[in-house]
């Protein structure tokens, strides 16, 4: 999911990454609406609200929304910076894993703060929403960057547009068996259902386990990190075995 970059990624890589990260984004968005009354995985609505607050002359609220949008931007910026400045075959996994680590750290911080320190003041709410928007920016920047913009998991506007376009293509017979289009549809539907699923699970979980829901989101992201880490370890193990076997074989050849 995280090891490969750009066009080297397979459909399966994108589907797994898209589904898991969309699931976590759906969870974050729903829990933030429940707890803070603010969306944190998408910023389209925030742009509309910003315009509305400016028009109404609510400068304080406008400034807050602008800072939230900036934090989402900063998350995307940080994520892509980490990726493009460490794009070496050896450091690629780490470069792709660091944004997920940072995202997990932000989510854990919000969860712990909510559990032990939150006094429900407006300042705290604004700050915690900003942290969640930064985390979602990190995730969106990572998935979009490493998949050549094929996977975007935190907002569904573009995805719904793409689905509309793809399904309209299927009205023509020649596109119905197009493998690329079918895979694209599967990826988009996978992301859509995962996002929805994450939202529903988060809504149900929050009323049972409260702020521990953030730990569950962290675990989902942990799967993204550990899946590739385990794959890397297996690959390294096979490579080591293969090279030691080749060494032994070449020594046997020399003796013979």
């Amino acid at each position, binding site marked *: 999911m995280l090891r490969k970059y750009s066009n080297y990624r397979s459909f399966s890589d994108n589907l797994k990454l898209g589904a898991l990260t969309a699931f976590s984004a759906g969870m974050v968005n729903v829990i933030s609406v429940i707890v803070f009354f*603010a969306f944190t995985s998408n910023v389209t609505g925030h742009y509309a*609200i910003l315009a509305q607050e400016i028009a109404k002359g609510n400068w304080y*609220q*406008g*400034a*807050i929304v602008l800072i939230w949008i900036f934090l989402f931007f900063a998350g995307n910026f940080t994520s892509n910076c980490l990726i493009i400045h460490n794009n070496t075959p050896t450091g690629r996994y780490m470069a792709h894993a660091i944004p997920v680590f940072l995202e997990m750290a932000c989510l854990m911080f919000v969860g712990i703060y909510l559990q032990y320190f939150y006094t429900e003041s*407006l300042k705290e*709410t604004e700050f915690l929403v900003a942290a969640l928007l930064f985390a979602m920016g990190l995730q969106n920047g990572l998935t979009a960057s490493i998949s050549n913009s094929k996977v975007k998991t935190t907002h569904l506007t573009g995805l719904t547009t793409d689905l509309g376009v793809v399904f309209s293509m299927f009205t023509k017979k020649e596109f119905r068996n197009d493998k690329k289009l079918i895979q694209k549809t599967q990826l988009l539907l996978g992301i859509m259902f995962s996002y929805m699923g994450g939202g529903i699970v988060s809504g149900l979980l929050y009323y049972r386990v409260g702020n521990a829901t953030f730990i569950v989101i962290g675990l989902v992201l942990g799967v993204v990190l550990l899946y590739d880490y385990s794959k890397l370890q297996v690959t390294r193990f096979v490579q080591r075995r293969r090279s030691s076997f080749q060494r032994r074989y070449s020594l046997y050849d020399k003796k013979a």
Partner: protein
Amino acid sequence: MRLGPIYLFFALLIVASGWLLLDQESPESLILGEWEEVAWKYEKLDHGDMMGFDIDKLQKQEICKNIIIHEAETWRFNPDGTLSFLDENEIKENLKWNIKGRGHILELHHKNNIVEDYQVVEVTEDELVVQFNSDLQVRGIVKMTFKRIPKKQYAQKI
């Protein structure tokens, strides 16, 4: 492409936002004090061409009876996060309040664990306007308007 002006523009926007946050009063501090109910109004209805009409006392009583809402005339927001509902200078109920979102949601926590959410439409030095959804008789949004009671006047009243 010259990136300098673009970076400068964004930096200025962020600095201006920070300055505005420090300079302007937040809804959380603006709401502190005593507020007197002055009007209840259906703002939007889902039938006919009516866009709004005043709610009389009887209708107000019926709305209050069927949903968890109070009939206080005065709301006193205290800095310690408590809210007192007063009716003819008598405290009818004490509860907890907080403001969520970007300052647009007023949450009231009653002692029996019931939570009410109101949308803060406007909060200024003189006026507080909140909305809540009602689907009694006619579905629509009920708008409550409050006027601030100046401190001296409130003290005299008591």
